[in-house]
């Protein structure tokens, strides 16, 4: 089955995970990744509120105030899952125990900077746990985002213009149009979504990038 749009983003991000990885997924498209895990890949999903091993949302007859994730959404616990204190869940994050995180964003740039918490004077919900996820403890920080804003402006910039959430922390950028790897030499276009050409991506991307020799198809 050929995915498109946000489904394609989630399905591609899910391929980064290995069986047994301990991951933290942001709200929205990042959390959708769990629906596209390759056969044989089971994850430990963290909720910052204090869960190692979040399971799917149960039937509403089972909803329980003492079983919620960081967004106060109902959760279940997978077999082997456990509760933990709030401060320890950030110890997992900063301390290098989480294998990967997937985050949405407002902007991301060619140096791996990410800005997803503040539009001064307009949108200021707060950073929640995002700055901790971007603090360097997690070695794989994947940005899952629409390629452009609704206005058509590129979200993948030479340099972020909004206040940063994290500096030089992003390792991979997945959009509905392509997948970039972030390297010390800038962005490398690794895969194209079906129907897109390198020229299409250049036309809608503010950041410069090089094209991988083994440029592949994103699926």
């Amino acid at each position, binding site marked *: 089955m050929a995915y498109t749009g946000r489904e394609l983003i989630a399905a591609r991000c899910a391929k980064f995970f290995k069986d047994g990885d301990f991951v933290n997924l942001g709200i929205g498209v990042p959390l959708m990744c769990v629906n596209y895990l390759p056969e044989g890949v089971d994850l430990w999903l963290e909720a910052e509120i204090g869960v190692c091993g979040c399971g799917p949302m149960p039937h509403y007859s089972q909803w329980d*105030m003492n079983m919620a994730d960081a967004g106060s959404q109902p959760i279940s616990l997978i077999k082997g899952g456990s509760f933990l204190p709030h401060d320890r869940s950030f110890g997992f994050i900063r301390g290098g125990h989480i294998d990967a995180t997937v985050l949405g964003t407002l902007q991301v740039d060619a140096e791996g900077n990410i800005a997803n918490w503040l539009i001064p004077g307009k949108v200021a919900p707060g950073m929640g746990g995002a700055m901790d996820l971007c603090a360097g403890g997690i070695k794989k920080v994947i940005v899952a985002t629409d390629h452009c804003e609704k206005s058509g402006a590129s979200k993948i910039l030479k340099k972020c213009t909004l206040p940063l959430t994290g500096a030089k922390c992003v390792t991979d950028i997945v959009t509905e149009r392509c997948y970039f790897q972030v390297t010390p030499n800038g962005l490398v276009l690794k895969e194209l979504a079906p129907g897109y050409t390198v020229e299409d991506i250049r036309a809608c991307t503010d950041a410069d990038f090089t094209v991988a020799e083994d440029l592949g198809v994103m699926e």
Partner: protein
Amino acid sequence: MKNKVFTLEEVLDKLHDGQSVMFTDLHGGLAADEIIDGMLAKGVKDLTAIGVSSGRHNMGMGKLIADHRVKKLLTTHIGLNKASIEQMFAGELEVEFIPQGTFAERIRCGGFGLGGCLTRSGLGTQMQEGKQIVNVDGLDYILEKPIRADVALLHATKADKAGNLYCAGTSHLCVDYMAMAADLVIAEVEELVEIGELDPEKVIVQAPVVDMVYVRQGEKAPLWKSWASQIAKIQEKEAAQA
């Protein structure tokens, strides 16, 4: 053993204008609802509130914000309480945003006798402005200072009469470290048991740090109000499929 169970009136006697108060709510749920309602009725104002989020305008600590009782807020997120957003942009509510992991550690330091913590959360962002950067073995860290409060207003699933607390599942959240970081520690609990009835392995806050226990009189902690509309939508779908 000293009995720490008090009435709502006795608890409210300790809560005054201008205090700094820690709240353990998660987005308005799992709050010390009856004490918060009592604070609203008593007219307590000019509070400094400390909580993971600003709650919701109609639940938990967020109600105090919606009713303009809070002048300063230390938090990580205000996106679910429209009153907090409006008041911040109107200049009526001072908000200090803190990364969530740093929020936990600063309060923990406040309660654990530590002068602060060194973290890389927020390094290279505006979070480091005005703060000391400390280099340890070649890596830069931001020095984040401890947070304490006059009062910690906790919610717990169970307490015994001595003040030992148990919190089920994810309601544990910040109860344990907030209980360590305030001069006066008050717990509103769903259920009270005799001393010795709590499983010692499940006690998350030890009795000596808890000053007052108040047992909820009304219904158990209500579900998040947003859940009712979510359930209604699912039921609609189910009905359509049937």
